[in-house]
C-alpha cells in the first residue's frame, strides 16, 4: 500500500528504506506489509493511533525485533539489522519513549554503556559537557539518574544518541512527557539536526506537532501503511481521518443543565510529591454540578495520576473537609467507602489498575462492587450474582465476549474499556470520576463510551473527566479547567473557550487565566 510518489527528486537514494515489513505476534499482526522511506535532511513523521504498529516498526528498524517478512535497505544496500548494536554501527540512533536508563548509575556511566568500549569516563564526561552546551541541553555527567527530572532524563537519552553521531535519529513519542515549551526547544534542536544533514524519524499521534515539525508523514493504521503524505498544508482533520480510517465523528455536546446543584466539591486539596518523578498537587479546587461533565485538560505528567489517586481515595488527605459529595465530607474515606457513598471511578490504565487481567470478568465485576450490597454475603462471594452482574454489564455496554465469563486479558482493549466503563455507569453513580476514558480504543468504542457518559450526566449525575485529548474535552465537557504542574486553572465554560486558549494554559501560560476566570464563578447553565 505504500505510495512511492512522494519520493523527493533531489535525493534519488533514500537513506533508509523498508519494504513489505510484516510482523506477527501469535495471531495478532502488528505490522502488515509496511513500506517506508526516509531521505537525508528529512524530518519524517510516523503517525498512527495507539496500537497501530508504530512501536513494532520502530523496534524492527532498530533491530530489537526481527521482521517475519520484508527487507530493510540502508543507503540502498540490503541489510539485516540483528540488534541495536548493529543498528548503531549503521548510524541509527534511537530515543525511546520509555527511557532506557539505569537509575543507580551516573549520567556518564549511562552514556558509556551505549558507546563503544575504550573511552575513559573522564574524556567521555568532557565530551558530554561540550555537546550539551552546544545544543543548550545542560546536564551534569556525574549526577545519578534517580536524582534527575523526567525532562533531564530525556536529555541524557538524546545526548547519548548524539555522541554516536547517528545519520538517522528515531524519536519515539518524545513529547509525551514534555511541556509545550520543552517541546518547542526539542523541535529547534531537531531542526538543527536536519540542517546538519541528519534524518529524523519522529513518532507521534499528536497532529499539531507533526504538522509543525515534519515535512512528510507515513501513516499506519492497524498495522498497515495507509500512505505517505506531505504534512504541509494538510489539516488535522485530514490526517486524523487517515489515521483512524473513518470520518471523524463529532459527538454533539449536550446542553448544560441550568441552576443545577453542586454534587461534588474539592476545596484546597494539597499533596506533596510522593517521589522524584511525581508531581505535587497544589490547592486543587473542583466544583461539579448535577448533569454536568467537568473536563480537566492537561498534558500527561502534570499531576493527572496524583489527582486521580486523590479523587478515588487510593491516596487520602489527612485533613477533613477537602472533598465533599453532595455535602457529605468524604475526604478521609477510602475507595470502597466512596463507592458506597455513590461514586464511581474509571482510572486511565485498564490492565492492572481498573481491571485484573488474569481474572475473569465476574471477578473484575466484584472489584468495584464488593463494598456494595448484593455480591458478598457475610464475607462469602455470590458467584452466581457476580456472573450475572458481569453478563449484565457486557449486554448493556456492547462488550463482545469470546466465551461466557472470559479472562479480562482475553478481551481487546476497546472491549475491556467498555466493560470497565460499563461496570461503573450501570450503577448510575451520582459522581463519576474518569481518566482518559477513550485512551487507545477504536473510534467506535470511543463514541460509545462518550455517549454513555453523556447519558449518565443527563440522568443528573456529575462527571469529572480527566483527559489529555482536547478534542474529547471539547466534544463533551460543559466546563473546562487545565491541570498544569499540579495546579488547576480557573474553570471556564466550553462554549466560551477555544482550543488555542486551553492549549496555552496546558503549556503553563498563566497570562490567559483571566479568559477562563470570567466563567469560573458563573453557574454552568448561565452561558448556555
Amino acid at each position, binding site marked *: 500500500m505504500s505510495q512511492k510518489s512522494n519520493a523527493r527528486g533531489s535525493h534519488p537514494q533514500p537513506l533508509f528504506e523498508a519494504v513489505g515489513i510484516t510482523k506477527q505476534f501469535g495471531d495478532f499482526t502488528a505490522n502488515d506489509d509496511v513500506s517506508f522511506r526516509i531521505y537525508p535532511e528529512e524530518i519524517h513523521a510516523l503517525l498512527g493511533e495507539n496500537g497501530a504498529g508504530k512501536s513494532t516498526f520502530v523496534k524492527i528498524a532498530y533491530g*530489537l525485533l526481527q521482521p517475519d517478512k520484508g527487507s530493510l535497505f540502508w543507503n540502498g544496500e540490503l541489510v539485516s539489522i540483528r540488534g541495536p548494536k548493529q543498528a548503531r554501527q549503521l548510524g541509527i540512533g534511537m530515543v525511546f519513549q520509555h527511557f532506557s536508563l*539505569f537509575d543507580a548509575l551516573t549520567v556518564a556511566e549511562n552514556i558509556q*554503556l551505549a558507546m563503544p568500549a575504550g573511552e575513559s569516563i573522564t574524556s567521555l564526561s568532557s565530551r558530554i559537557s561540550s555537546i550539551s552546551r552546544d545544543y543548550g541541553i545542560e546536564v551534569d555527567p556525574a549526577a545519578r539518574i534517580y536524582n534527575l527530572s523526567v525532562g533531564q532524563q530525556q536529555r541524557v537519552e538524546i545526548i547519548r544518541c548524539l555522541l554516536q553521531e547517528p545519520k538517522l535519529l528515531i524519536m519515539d513519542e518524545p513529547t509525551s512527557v514534555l511541556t509545550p515549551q520543552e517541546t518547542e526547544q526539542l523541535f529547534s534542536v531537531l531542526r538543527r539536526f536536519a540542517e546538519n544533514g541528519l534524518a529524523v524519524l519522529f513518532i507521534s499521534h499528536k497532529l499539531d506537532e507533526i504538522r509543525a515539525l515534519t515535512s512528510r508523514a507515513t501513516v499506519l493504521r492497524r498495522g498497515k501503511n495507509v500512505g505517505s503524505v506531505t504534512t504541509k498544508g494538510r489539516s488535522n482533520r485530514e490526517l486524523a481521518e487517515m489515521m483512524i480510517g473513518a470520518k471523524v465523528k463529532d459527538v454533539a455536546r449536550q446542553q448544560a443543565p441550568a441552576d443545577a446543584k453542586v454534587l461534588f466539591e474539592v476545596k484546597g486539596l494539597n499533596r506533596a510529591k510522593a517521589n522524584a518523578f511525581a508531581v505535587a498537587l497544589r490547592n486543587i479546587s473542583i466544583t461539579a454540578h448535577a448533569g454536568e461533565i467537568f473536563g480537566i485538560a492537561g498534558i500527561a505528567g502534570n499531576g493527572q495520576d496524583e489527582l486521580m489517586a486523590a479523587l478515588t481515595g487510593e491516596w487520602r488527605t489527612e485533613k477533613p473537609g477537602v472533598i465533599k459529595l453532595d455535602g457529605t465530607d468524604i475526604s478521609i474515606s477510602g475507595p470502597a467507602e466512596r463507592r458506597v457513598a455513590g461514586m464511581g471511578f474509571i482510572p486511565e490504565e485498564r490492565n492492572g489498575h481498573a481491571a485484573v487481567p488474569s481474572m475473569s470478568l465476574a471477578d473484575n465485576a466484584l472489584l468495584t462492587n464488593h463494598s456494595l450490597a448484593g455480591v458478598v454475603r457475610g464475607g462469602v462471594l455470590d458467584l452466581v450474582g457476580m456472573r450475572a452482574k458481569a453478563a449484565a454489564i457486557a449486554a448493556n455496554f456492547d462488550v463482545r465476549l469470546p466465551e461466557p465469563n472470559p479472562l479480562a486479558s482475553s478481551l481487546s482493549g476497546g472491549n475491556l474499556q467498555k466493560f470497565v466503563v460499563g461496570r461503573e455507569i450501570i450503577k448510575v453513580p451520582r459522581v463519576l470520576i474518569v481518566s482518559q476514558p477513550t485512551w487507545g480504543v477504536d473510534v467506535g468504542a470511543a463514541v460509545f463510551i462518550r455517549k454513555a457518559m453523556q447519558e449518565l450526566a443527563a440522568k443528573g449525575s456529575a462527571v469529572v473527566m480527566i483527559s489529555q485529548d482536547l478534542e474529547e474535552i471539547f466534544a463533551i465537557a460543559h466546563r473546562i479547567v487545565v491541570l498544569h504542574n499540579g495546579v488547576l486553572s480557573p474553570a471556564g465554560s466550553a462554549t466560551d473557550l477555544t482550543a488555542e486558549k486551553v492549549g496555552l494554559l496546558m503549556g503553563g501560560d498563566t497570562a490567559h487565566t483571566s479568559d477562563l476566570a470570567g466563567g469560573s464563578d458563573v453557574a454552568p447553565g448561565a452561558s448556555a
Partner: protein
Amino acid sequence: MEALMLTVLLTSVPLIFAATGELVAERSGVLNLGVEGMMLMGAVSAFAATAIVGNPYLGVLAGAVAGAMTALVFSLFALGLATNQVATGLALTIFGTGLSGLVGAPFVGGTIEGLPNLAIPLLADLPVIGNLLFNHDFMAYLSIGFLLAVGWFLRRTRAGLVLRAVGNSHDSAHALGYPVLLVRFCAVSFGGMMAGLGGAYLPLVLTPHWSEGMTAGRGWIALALVVFASWIPSRILVGALLFGGITIMQLAGQARGWVVPSQMLSMLPYIATIIVLVVIARNREFALANSPACLGRLFIGSK
C-alpha cells in the same frame, strides 16, 4: 590468642568465597538461594577428587567445577525458563544437599591430606602478623585475591559496569542490546564456582573428611553476608571476619564456661543481617545506588 585469630581467619575463608560469588550474581539481578547446595557439591567433589587422585590442588579445581555445574542447573531453570528464583534456589539447595550425600556416601569415614600452608617469603617472618597473615594455604590467598578482583571488576571495568547495569534495569540493558541472560548466566556460574570453592575449603583445609551436610548452614550465612555487606565487596571481608569470629567466640566461650549461651552468639549474624536490611531499606539514597533493583525479578528475553 594468635591461634584463636588464626582460626577466625580460616573459618571466614569459605564465607568469603561463597559471599563474593553470590554478590556478583545478585549484582546482576539474580537471587540464587542455592548457595548451600552448591557449596556441598563443591565440598564433596573436592573431597572425592582428592581422595581418588591424591592431589588437593585437583580437589580445588574439582570443587570449583562442581559448584559451577550445579549453578548451571539453576541457570537452566531460573534464566532459561524464567522460573521463580526463590523457589528454584531453594530447590537447588535441596537437590544439592541430596546429591552431595549420594555422591559422598562411599567417602564417609575417609580422610585426605589437605592443602599445605605456603609461607610467603620474608613477609611470613614478620613478628606477630607474619604467621597470622602470610602463612596460609593457597585457597586462603585465593579468596582474598578473588575479593579484590571482584571489587576492581565491578568498579573499574566496563564488563563490571554492564553487570551492574543489567542488575539495575534489565529492560534498559536489553534495549541497549546487552545480552541480559548471558550476563546473568556468567554471573550465576561465577557465583557457583565461588560457592564450590568455599565448599571445597571445608574438607581441604578445615576438617579433612567428608560428612553429609558438612557446610552446616554456611551457605545461608553467605547469603546473609551479601546483604550485610549491602552488595559492596570490601564489606564482605569485614562481615566474614565478624561472622567467622562469632563462630569461634562461641567455641572458645564454651570451653571457658561463659555465661552467654553459645546459641545466642550464633544468632548474632542473622540478627545483624536483619538490622542491616532495615537500615538499608530506610536509606533510600543508598538503596537506590547500591542494591540491585532487579534482584529476583523475572526477565523474559522475548515476548
